[in-house]
């Protein structure tokens, strides 16, 4: 096991910069998730760590060693690919044992490593099958088994769950997390799914357009997003945002563009002509007769909760209520906002105030 460090890492394909200076520190044994929309460079960053892409500038360290010029086979890392990359002409057992076979380990050593790994993943009865004969979830497990057998310094996962159906994805999520708790190997995991990131990570790195937007624990990102991008990306349904400015007569009140006044938890130090964005999470809104009137547009009952899209202060916002609400489109609801849980951002820089 080892720590991993990215120091001002850059990467360009031709003249096109893909990674524009990334600094991340990953502690020994940590589960770190790189998350961001497609094309943000997260997979490229992971492949650079694996040695599958070269590094245009900066440094990547595994442990104390700079690995910029170290070929993949000497980095002692195991990777689970999005398409699993199982060798189709080898049985499950041979797939898992491949790295050991290459090292020339004896049959006894290989067995002693493969068997326990297969047991952890529930693959024991499948060891003699070929990848084609397995379901998607089983292939996923074999790919993880191949990584576990290696007992590497670092585990890399490149969107490992995106080829699975929704139900299996949730199950595998828990399985991967459990596996990490058991093996405590440093893990870097790439996904575009913020739910995966929130549920599994010790630390999330939110990436956007080749840059790191924010690094932090899941709840830290949720509670204190550093900018508009992170605020919109983390959380589902995403944060509602309303443009406006501070009420010149009352620093505890935000004025939306249509003149509606929204509550603010603590005084905001900003001049009234500075354009701001008022952010509120759907989960922190409730029905309140003294609240702000909003017109229901769409109502989506899910059983456990009711999601309502309503027009509030001239903007369509999403609200999540834990009670069942018998409203119809066109009805007016009065919505109370938890003033302590709102976020204020500068509209031009996008930064949190």
């Amino acid at each position, binding site marked *: 096991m080892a720590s991993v460090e990215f120091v001002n890492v850059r990467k360009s394909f031709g003249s096109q910069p893909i990674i524009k200076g990334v600094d991340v520190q990953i502690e020994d044994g940590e589960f770190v998730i790189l998350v961001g929309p497609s094309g943000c460079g997260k997979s490229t960053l992971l492949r650079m760590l*694996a*040695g*599958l892409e070269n590094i245009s500038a900066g440094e990547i360290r595994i442990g104390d060693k700079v690995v910029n010029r170290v*070929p*993949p*086979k000497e*980095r002692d*890392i*195991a*990777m689970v*690919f*999005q*398409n699993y*990359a199982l*060798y*189709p*002409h*080898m049985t499950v057992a041979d797939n898992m044992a*491949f*790295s050991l076979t*290459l*090292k020339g380990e004896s049959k006894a050593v290989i067995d002693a490593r493969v068997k326990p790994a297969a047991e952890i993943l529930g693959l024991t009865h499948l060891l003699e099958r*070929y*990848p*084609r*004969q*397995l379901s998607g979830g089983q292939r996923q497990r074999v790919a993880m088994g*191949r990584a576990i057998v*290696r007992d590497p310094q670092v585990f890399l996962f490149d969107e490992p769950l995106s080829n699975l159906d929704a139900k299996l994805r949730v199950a595998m999520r828990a399985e991967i997390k459990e596996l990490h708790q058991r093996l405590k190997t440093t893990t870097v995991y790439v996904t575009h799914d913020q739910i995966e990131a929130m549920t599994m990570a010790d630390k999330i790195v939110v990436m956007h357009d080749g840059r790191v937007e924010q690094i932090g624990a899941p709840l830290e990102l949720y509670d204190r997003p550093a900018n508009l991008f992170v605020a919109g990306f983390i959380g589902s349904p995403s944060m509602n945002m309303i443009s406006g400015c501070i009420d010149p007569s009352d620093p505890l009140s935000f004025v939306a563009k249509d003149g509606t006044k929204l509550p603010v938890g603590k005084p905001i130090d900003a001049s009234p002509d500075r354009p701001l964005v008022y952010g509120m999470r759907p989960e922190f809104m409730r029905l309140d007769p003294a609240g702000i009137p909003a017109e229901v547009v769409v109502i989506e009952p899910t059983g456990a909760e009711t999601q309502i899209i309503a027009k509030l202060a001239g903007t369509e916002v999403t609200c999540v209520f834990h009670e069942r609400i018998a409203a119809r489109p066109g009805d007016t609801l009065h919505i109370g906002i938890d003033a302590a849980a709102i976020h204020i951002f500068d509209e031009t820089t996008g930064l949190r105030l």
Partner: protein
Amino acid sequence: MSSQSIPPPKARMTDWLQSRNATGLLFMLPAAAFLICFLTYPLGLGVWLGFTDAKIGRSGVFIGLENYWYLWHDPVFWTSVFNTVFYTLIASVLKFALGLWLALILNEHLPFKSFFRAIVLLPWVVPTVLSALAFWWIFDAQFSIISWSLMQLGWIDAPINFLGDPTNARISVIAANVWRGIPFIAISLLAGLQTISPSLQEAASLDGATSWQRFRLVTLPMLTPIIAVVMTFSVLFTFTDFQLIYVLTKGGPVNATHLMATLSFQRGIPGGQLGEGAAIAVAMIPFLLAAILFSFFGLQRRKWQQGGQD
């Protein structure tokens, strides 16, 4: 079903005509007629001629295995069998090795990749007779460019007698055949290489495989089904080769480059012995069947290709 009454014959006929099988049969007819006229009939006629003493201008009578008996004791026929097997074996091995090598190079990220891929196909698209004529000049006893270059370099004193010496002639025709055959193998294997997911190579390199191990343990096993198809075709083409030999050496010198196909033609048409020529051609069939059987077993789906859906 069983409770339904059986429809009258006429209705059954109409039903059948509208079924998928009838439509299928109808669509197959033109192709079947074509195959019978242009493949089955000539093949059958050839086999029949082999059992007769037909000459040009005289339809023969059935003489049983007499042609084959004669050939069995004919040293020239056995030379041609040896030549054909030797030619096929050496040329196929060389074509496979060089074709695979070329395919591996073309599969890398090279500048002007698609240009090179197009260029490689050139020997294949040029008509055989044309390239054979070019080789005829290259291998000319006096004006050969190879001899000239080597003489300019001072490596040899006199021109090489490429097509006049038995050993040189064999090497020369094999070289020409290899040059012509490489593109087919290289492009087919390149297509096969491109079906192998690059992430398999990446996974193998992370697993600690050297590039030779990646080739031997990942690429080659996954390429075997395509190698089996391509090499079967290549062996069939090479075994039945005619044009190249006919233009370059006409089987000479002293039958050193006579293949079964060229001998069959020489005995049958210029020699006028249609029956004997046909018998030589028929004698190729067991060899070709062996090659086809080899590919049949080679092409069988391997265990790892079976089961599951993808």
